[in-house]
């Protein structure tokens, strides 16, 4: 059988770190990259006698995410203790949510190969992160608890993702959403967005799920795609050979490009869930829910629909602009400052994004060319003051020297010459200097390019090419 004979069924569990300043149940900082064990306190270390106290910002973040994807918010929910022994888990208890997640259901919308996709969510729940084991050598292991107690929300999809590409785009959509909401930075390489995939195959046309495997350790979008693609092929070859897929957890080895068995279902833990007695139920009352709803920004897919619809941008351009909240915000601000929508889109996509490096810096207050300044430049092009070619040079100067377009144009005399008299004098001069070409023009109209180029040279590039064309055509006729 070929791969086409199988239907791929993928469900994803995405852990997004929530960008609160302090941990979910204690006061240490959640900063990334500090010296090991410097961002800890008695509570996140699980010392005897400590108690968790919920950071309310974590609840607000999860509720906003839930509202953004249309989840049903559970206005009264509980935390649960999940038990397993591992040195990176300070209490050997993870405080999580089990039977009462903060959000039920919801839908994540995104685009895949130009088509709209909607993946339904099972739930979103809150939990604390564990620390990190560092295996120093064969005889020694160290543990860094800086990450212990960092707030996470786990976003669980229904098993209805049909390809590795779709899985990767779904995760990217979640990252975009988390960033739009300002509740996390969604950095897969730093582990602030992590993804586990449940993958199974079934013969096309059948409805029962095949046996699934859980894939872990995919720390980039590329890893997500590659790992699932590999796992799909692996399962297909097992099934093709008449074998059975074993339910197990497999680790993605990016260097070798394979998934490897980590533990089977028989070794699975009994987590002995029970309600966390140290935390009262979390209550989100109607007023809090309404207030949080009002804080939602325009979401990526709504923005895409607006750009590709009423604004009239191509789906490609709209897609680039909405990919980060800061790009879209920059673009909207430039348009609000008077830049024509389509021209502004081109400038943002082709020029601004080419020089900014990290697109999220466009949200900074001290971006070298603020949106209003870009609008000023685009307006000068639009009204013919500045040629497109010179405008790009002017933009380069604006970015490097933090000056406005009007200032550069005025001080450096870069305004486009459209004045008929001045241009005609230049044209006559060029024709006089090139009598042979002038004589040949009628037989060879392609010489127009030569004359236009010569006039541009004569005027230092400032001549309005359209006007030059018209004058030359008249003089050479």
């Amino acid at each position: 059988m070929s791969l086409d004979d199988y239907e791929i069924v993928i469900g994803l569990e995405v852990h997004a770190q929530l960008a609160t300043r302090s941990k979910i149940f204690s006061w240490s900082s959640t900063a990334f990259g500090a010296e090991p064990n410097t961002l800890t306190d008695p509570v996140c270390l699980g010392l005897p006698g400590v108690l968790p106290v919920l950071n309310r910002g974590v609840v607000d973040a999860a509720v906003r995410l839930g509202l953004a994807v249309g989840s049903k918010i559970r206005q009264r929910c509980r935390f649960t203790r999940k038990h397993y022994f591992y040195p990176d888990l300070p209490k050997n208890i993870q405080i999580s949510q089990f039977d009462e997640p903060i959000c039920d259901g919801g839908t994540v919308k995104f685009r895949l190969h130009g088509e709209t996709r909607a993946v339904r969510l099972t739930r979103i729940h809150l939990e604390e992160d564990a620390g990190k084991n560092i295996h120093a050598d064969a005889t020694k292991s160290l543990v860094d608890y800086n990450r212990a107690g960092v707030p996470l929300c786990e976003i669980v999809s229904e098993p209805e993702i049909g390809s590795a590409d779709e899985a990767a785009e779904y995760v990217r959509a979640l990252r975009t959403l988390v960033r739009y909401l300002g509740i996390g930075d969604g950095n897969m390489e730093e582990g602030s967005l992590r993804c586990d995939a449940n993958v199974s195959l079934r013969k096309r046309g059948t409805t029962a799920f095949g046996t699934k495997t859980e894939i872990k350790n995919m720390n980039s979008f590329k890893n997500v795609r590659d790992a699932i693609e590999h796992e799909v092929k692996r399962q297909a070859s097992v099934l093709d050979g008449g074998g059975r897929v074993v339910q197990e957890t497999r680790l993605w080895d990016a260097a070798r490009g394979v998934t490897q068995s980590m533990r089977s279902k028989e070794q699975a833990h009994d987590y002995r869930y029970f309600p966390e007695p140290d935390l009262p139920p979390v209550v989100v009352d109607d007023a809090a829910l309404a207030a949080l709803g009002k804080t939602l920004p325009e979401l990526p897919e709504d923005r895409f629909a607006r750009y590709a619809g009423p604004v009239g941008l191509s789906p490609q351009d709209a897609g680039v602009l909405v990919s980060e909240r800061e790009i879209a915000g920059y673009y909207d601000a430039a348009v609000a400052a008077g830049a024509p929508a389509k021209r502004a889109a081109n400038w943002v996509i082709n020029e601004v994004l080419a020089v900014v490096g990290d697109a999220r810096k466009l949200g900074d207050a001290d971006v070298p060319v603020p949106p209003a300044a870009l609008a000023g430049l685009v307006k000068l092009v639009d009204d013919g003051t500045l040629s497109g070619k010179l405008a790009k040079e002017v933009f380069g100067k604006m970015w490097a020297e933090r000056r406005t377009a009007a200032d550069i144009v005025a001080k450096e005399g870069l305004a486009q010459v459209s004045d008929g008299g001045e241009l005609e004098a230049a044209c006559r001069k060029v024709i006089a200097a090139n009598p042979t070409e002038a004589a040949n023009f009628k037989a060879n109209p392609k010489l127009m390019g030569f004359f236009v180029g010569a006039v541009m040279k004569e005027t230092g590039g400032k001549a309005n090419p359209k006007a030059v064309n018209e004058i030359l055509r008249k003089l050479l006729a």
Partner: protein
Amino acid sequence: MTSIDARGATAVAIADGVRAGKLLARDVAEQYLDRIARLDGALGCYLLVDAEGARRRADAVDAAYKAGRDPGALAGVPLGVKDIFCTRGVETTCASKILRGFVPPYESTVTSRLAAAGGVMLGKLNMDEFAMGSSNENSAFKPVKNPWSHAHVPGGSSGGSAAATAASLCAGAIGTDTGGSIRQPAALCGVVGVKPTYGRVSRYGVIAFASSLDHPGPFGRTVEDAAALLEAMAGVDEHDATSIPAPVGAYRAAARTGGDGPEPLKGVRIGVPDEYFQPGMDAEVESAVRAALDELARAGARIVKVSLPNTKYAIATYYLICTAEASSNLARYDGVRFGYRAGDARSLEEMYTKTRGEGFGTEPKRRIMLGTYVLRAGYYEAYYGKALRARRKIADDFQAAFAGCDAIVTPTSPIPAFKFGEKTSDPLQMYLADVLTVGPDLAGIPALSQPCGFTKAGLPIGLQTIAPALGEETCFRVAGAYEARTKWHQQLPPETAS
């Protein structure tokens, strides 16, 4: 400057003396330290005596007085602290080998509040390991003797706190009550012990046994002493999400109204539940408690019959919940970050099993096993879920009873202190020692135990007063009235130098 005889001294007398400039906190502390040095060898109350720290704290109180500042409501009161409260820089073991060497880098809310009120901690008190036990025989280090008879247990788990208070090895103490661990030893040692409303006193820094049942509370020689301590300990705490934001009551004042006039309890209805007077109860205990009820009636209270029909489920309910929570809370003792670690493990698995196998005593192991069973997948509803529903019913019983009365008065323990080894071979018999105390723990409501007599053999008998949630003032008012009319609390145990 006057001096005070530490033997039998009350906390409020010491605080009043220090605040009036008549006593030096340092002198008082030295007297108690001297008593501990002379007498505790025979009793085993203290696991750690922090003499230097006590002197430093006492000197600070005296310095505050000299500087014209109020040294606090508990100025210079020498206190004993159950070794379940984390104390910064002072080893805290929960009487377990697995925590030996653990020096907390932080202070419990309760001990820091007592210190802020001028209390002077003398040291850390013995207890049943992880507060699991009713006789103090489960301490990993040494048993505590009952000051009234060294052949008898002091009760538990806060046996060190009760015995030290009774023997004047401190002027007051703190403990924790999960199934009776303050009230039962208070009864067996002839002192006052209070288990407040759940959430009234912060659990931050109290090493957890069963989180939904653990109640920190005070021990005192008198009702007013216990009230003064509770006033300083109680109140909402940002570090304990289950603490209650309601203002702290005027407990001392309530304890004193008991002495007002011939009928200070006029208008108070006292409920007596038949379910708390069952066959198996010691006859001397029953007659002492019946006599106490008569005394309360003479003080103006109206005695009414109430019913707590689900009492028969209390012990089973309690042991399902407390073992489940204990198995979870004790998971953190694994040798990784603090306390005992087995030295010769060759794998992570082996480090865990050896550390826990060698570090925990029999009773914690038994409860971890039971709790693990209770919580295993697929059985939650049959055990823990059902226990939570039974707990609700038991709490509802109390609420219904309080519709017809203001307080419920019962014996604290069905039996007086028993002999060492008498119940150790049968854990179930030991568990039944809590039969009259677990109800208020499950319901989260306040209850107080105070002396109400002695057996012919000279062992103390305890009287329990139970009130609705946040009704601590009622407990103190009733208990204060009883105390004002009786002299049991003035009796002192014999002294035998070690």
